[in-house]
């Protein structure tokens, strides 16, 4: 998965590159491996993308100035192999997702970006923009989120029928339209939220029109549940649901599963802080801040190697002494992928004199990889897929350990399992290869 955004200005006096830059910064947490921006002024397409974080890739002010024009798109990605936006001088495509079959043919991973880009280019020559998107998306068996810009002045937007990845639309009145995975992007650049891009929607924005065409397969939504527990920003509204409220409720749900006579609730920054607040709200046990972080925030589940992760964690989190010394602590984090992070955190809490450490995880047990992205590691690297809760308690050296139940997650999000993709928690995926 990735972070994607697009801006289309209705008058050519705007330079959108800096708006796209800040939009991408607002999506940085969705992928720190590559970043890229494409713009156009109907004369040329200007693209720049590189490995690295947004502010590194666009460190040079001059780089942004070369991205001329009043419309464009951008992408940050988890996957360092993907080169996005994919561009050929006429059309530039930001693609995120996984195409299993195209027009009945099986597609290999990493071939899909190029394939979809080529198909869009081909169809765009043959028909109008909306026809092009309709023809291409009809042949896709898979999940996708697409934002493309063409030299001739169209912006193409598409979201699959399951709506796995979120996509919403905003407006800076009379000035421009904005599309992004997260509504927080709109706040960051000063636009107003207008609507979600629907599941199965193809949409075109150009000077003359905003065209929308919805053709949905007969299926339920399969909104990514990882967005809610972990991936999306706290200040975003995703598919009409407030991420902050959802995470606070997750804390409440965790508390309802417990009956522990603890002294303090501590959430591991940043993602688990609202879990801690919800837990405290439900039980009356005071919530405290327990850690101060050193260095920039890099999402640890997304970091590539084991050693890097270990160093990352130790560098990152330093416990504050007074809230833990001599206390029975409820420690809440967002996920346990390989157990290493958690073992370190528990260890440092004990060093600072915590009497008991009860570890709670604000997501259900992760048992399976994400077949649509690199968001979750493959199965052999998942501790939960291998060990029981009791065994994990031993490994991380906690007094007790438990996950949020799937039902608790459903209640927190406010959607039942059949409307979510909970593949990483259940191993059941809404869509995969034809016939599988």
């Amino acid at each position, binding site marked *: 998965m990735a972070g994607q955004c697009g801006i289309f200005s*209705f008058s050519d*006096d705007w330079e959108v590159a*800096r708006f796209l830059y*800040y939009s991408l910064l607002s999506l940085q947490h969705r992928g720190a491996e590559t970043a890229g921006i494409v713009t156009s002024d109907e004369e040329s397409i200007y693209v720049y993308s590189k490995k690295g974080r947004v502010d590194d890739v666009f460190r040079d002010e001059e780089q942004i100035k070369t991205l001329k024009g009043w419309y464009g798109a951008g992408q940050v990605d988890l996957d360092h192999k993907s080169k996005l936006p994919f561009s050929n001088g006429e059309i530039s495509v930001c693609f995120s997702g996984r195409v299993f079959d195209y027009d009945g043919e099986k597609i290999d991973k990493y071939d899909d970006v190029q394939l979809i880009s080529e198909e869009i280019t081909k169809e765009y020559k043959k028909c109008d923009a909306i026809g092009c998107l309709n023809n291409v998306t009809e042949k896709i068996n898979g999940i996708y989120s697409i934002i493309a810009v063409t030299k001739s002045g169209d912006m193409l937007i598409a979201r699959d029928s399951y709506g796995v990845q979120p996509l919403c639309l905003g407006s800076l009145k*009379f*000035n421009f339209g904005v599309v992004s995975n997260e509504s927080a992007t709109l706040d960051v650049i000063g636009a107003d939220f207008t609507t979600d891009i629907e599941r199965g929607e193809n949409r075109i924005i150009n*000077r*003359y*029109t905003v065209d929308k065409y919805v053709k949905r397969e007969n299926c339920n939504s399969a909104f990514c549940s990882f967005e809610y527990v972990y991936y999306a920003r706290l200040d975003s509204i995703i598919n009409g649901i407030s991420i902050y409220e959802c995470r606070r409720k997750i804390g409440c749900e965790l508390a309802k599963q417990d009956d522990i006579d603890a002294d303090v609730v501590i959430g591991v920054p940043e993602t688990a802080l609202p879990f801690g607040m919800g837990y405290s709200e439900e039980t009356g046990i005071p919530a405290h801040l327990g850690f101060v972080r050193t260095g920039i925030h890099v999402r640890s589940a997304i970091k590539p190697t084991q050693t890097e992760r270990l160093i990352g964690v130790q560098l990152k989190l330093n416990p504050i002494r007074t809230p833990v010394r001599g206390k029975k602590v409820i420690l809440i984090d967002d996920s346990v992928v390989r157990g290493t992070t958690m073992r370190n955190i528990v260890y440092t809490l004990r060093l600072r004199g915590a009497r008991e450490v009860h570890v709670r995880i604000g997501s259900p047990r992760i048992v399976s990889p994400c077949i649509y992205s690199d968001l979750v590691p493959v199965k052999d690297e998942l501790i939960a897929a291998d060990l029981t809760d009791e065994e994990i308690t031993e490994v991380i050296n906690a007094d007790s350990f438990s996950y949020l139940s799937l039902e608790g997650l459903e209640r927190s999000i406010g959607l039942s399992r059949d409307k979510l993709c909970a593949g990483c928690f259940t191993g059941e995926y809404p869509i995969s290869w034809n016939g599988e």
Partner: protein
Amino acid sequence: MKILTIGNGSREHSIVESLAISNIEPVIFNIGSLINPGILELCEKSGGKVVRSDPNDPKKVVEIAESISPDFAIIGPEEPQFHGVPDALLDAGIATVGATANCSMIERSKAWMRRLMFKYKIVGRLRFKSFTSVEEAIAYINAYAESIVLKPARQSGGKGVRVISDLQEYLKKEKRAVKEKHAKYLIEKHMKPYSDIDDKILIEEKVSGTEYTLQCFSDGHSVIPTPLVQDNKPAFDGDLGPETGGMGCCSYRDTLPFITKEEVDDSLKIIKQSVDAIQKETDEKYKGIIAGQMMLTSLWGPTLIEFYSRFGDPEGVNVLPIMKTDFVEVCEAIISEKLNKIKIEFEDQATVVKAIAPRGYPDYRDLAKGHPISVDLKLLEKYGVRPYYGSIDVVNGSWITGGSRSIELFAKRDTIEEANEATERCIPAAKLLDGHQLFHRSDIGSKERLLVEADKANLAREIYLYRKEHNLIGRKVDWIPLRGKIEYKG
């Protein structure tokens, strides 16, 4: 009885229709720059006719009027008012419904209007600066302007307004560049054709909130409201796209679902005070229609964005068809200054009006122009939806699009959502015969959109009510280094 109508858009089509259904059965005439097919049909049926001429030319209009010798005239659009057509008609002894050139300054010059509101301390006024030179405007933008609205000082057909909220320090440079470019564009290009006012552009404080229009009849003594209407200015669905003259409106009985009775009353008070002020300034009676385009803001509650010295288009098309009182009677009451003697009533219904325009509107009108258009009346009849023709010209019997909105579809139902659905079903009734495309906004009147508007209204209401309670309404205090605390005085 003979009545002369001026103007050829959808609004005038509905004015002519309201006259045509009068018990008095008047003979109706029309002067327009295009031959509007709807107006043509109604006028001819009544025994009158349509004359193609320049409705903004007082001489020509009077000449035609004298040959007809109507009992009275009604002016639909604002430009004939600005050009003194009502004055010329009155001079020729023809009673006229429509603000005179002086009274219509309330719409023509947004600078005049704002100064008037300050002079008479009318609530709901926005702070502004007016400029005539690019250099001064840019100097101001660089020194002070943050979140602002740049607009032409003169009414110019619903174009040229830029709303630029500027709260993000990191995007200031880009926003400033556009502010400067737009100020330059407005002064050097946009305002070039207009020499009838001195100010060139306004820079206004930017407010936010839900918008609505309150249209009223005025006879120089009484100001009588019609149902509240909400227009939608951005061209495309989801409030995207450039500014237009209005893509569609809804109304619900005498108010809107998200505006309170008190807010309607407060808005009416603002309009009444403004009419009094206009009459004091001009020493003329305001006889015609006046409308306040309002916004419910946290700063004031009901806040004045601009005035119309006529019915809005499309807003007029929401209210005229549901007026129960005979429109001829209303016009006569305006002329004889007896509005207080009649009761003006409306049906208890929700209405939705949707504009349909050829692709190219609003910014590329040459593209939108010159396409043959047809309308499937059977489909409209099936859903009880009525067409009001706009920018369509009857040329040798064929209907050809002008550059603006071609048709407005009107539906009335018990709820806005139902009326919306009815108009949506009838959108396919309009077709361009040469394959060029039409567009409209499907979201106007939808449940989702109404919720968004209600949310905006609630947000503003919570704050302005608090401010009112604490005597803070309309106040804005700032601190500027080396200058200290300043209060922007209203």
